[in-house]
């Protein structure tokens, strides 16, 4: 299970039981890395279905399976999608 929660102005990522604290800047970098993963390529025969992703300025490394990547893409998209009322605030 993967979750993101807020913890004293940091983002706490719980990745299958492993917990990591990300600053906003680290979250932006993580978002960029996850968004850059071509999920379609995971379904080609020669792809291992594994992604190795550094985060928190190389302090941590995540090993992601295809389903993790899909879930993370969804979660990160939701974090950065402003609600209608917040657009102009």
């Amino acid at each position: 299970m993967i979750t993101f929660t807020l913890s004293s102005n940091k983002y706490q990522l719980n990745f299958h039981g492993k917990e990591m604290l990300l600053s906003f800047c680290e979250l932006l970098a993580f978002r960029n890395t996850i968004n850059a993963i071509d999920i379609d390529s995971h379904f080609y025969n020669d792809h291992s279905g594994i992604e190795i992703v550094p985060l928190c300025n190389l302090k941590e490394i995540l090993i992601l399976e295809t389903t993790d990547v899909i879930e993370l893409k969804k979660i990160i998209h939701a974090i950065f999608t402003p609600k209608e009322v917040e657009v102009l605030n």
Partner: protein
Amino acid sequence: MENLVRENLSINIKIIDLLNEQIKMEAKASSMYLAMASWCEQHGYDHSAKLFYDQSAEEREHMLKIFKFINDNGGMAYAPEVPKVSHEYESILDLYKTALHEEIQVSKSIQSIFLTCRKEKDVASELFLQWFVNEQLEEEQKMRHAVKIYELHGDDVENLYALDKRISRG
């Protein structure tokens, strides 16, 4: 969670992504103009070479302007990978036509981001891009002027170098 994103970012995340793409485009244009400057120097078009050296520096300035804007507003700008650019052109006219085509692509891209800003109600980015919209009109005009001159008077080989001087006068 969304509020914390807003607290850290002054501009829309979708616009940041598009501006990072624009950085790549400006970097490519800068590199392409450098290649064009080289071609012009090798073929004796010294005034056009100067124009393209200046253009290359200008595109890099545009890139840095966007780069700073992203970072200054809480986002993260990414240093671009520069794709391979051509160093071969059939003629000076072909070269200027390619440059004009590139400027039109950049204009389209800027305008598209501008309209996305409007859609996303990102007023700050829209105002920032207004300068680029005007700047692109000037850039396009510069290249269009050169294309017109070479199309009208460029059949005579002797004439080509005289036209090169004329282009530098704008």
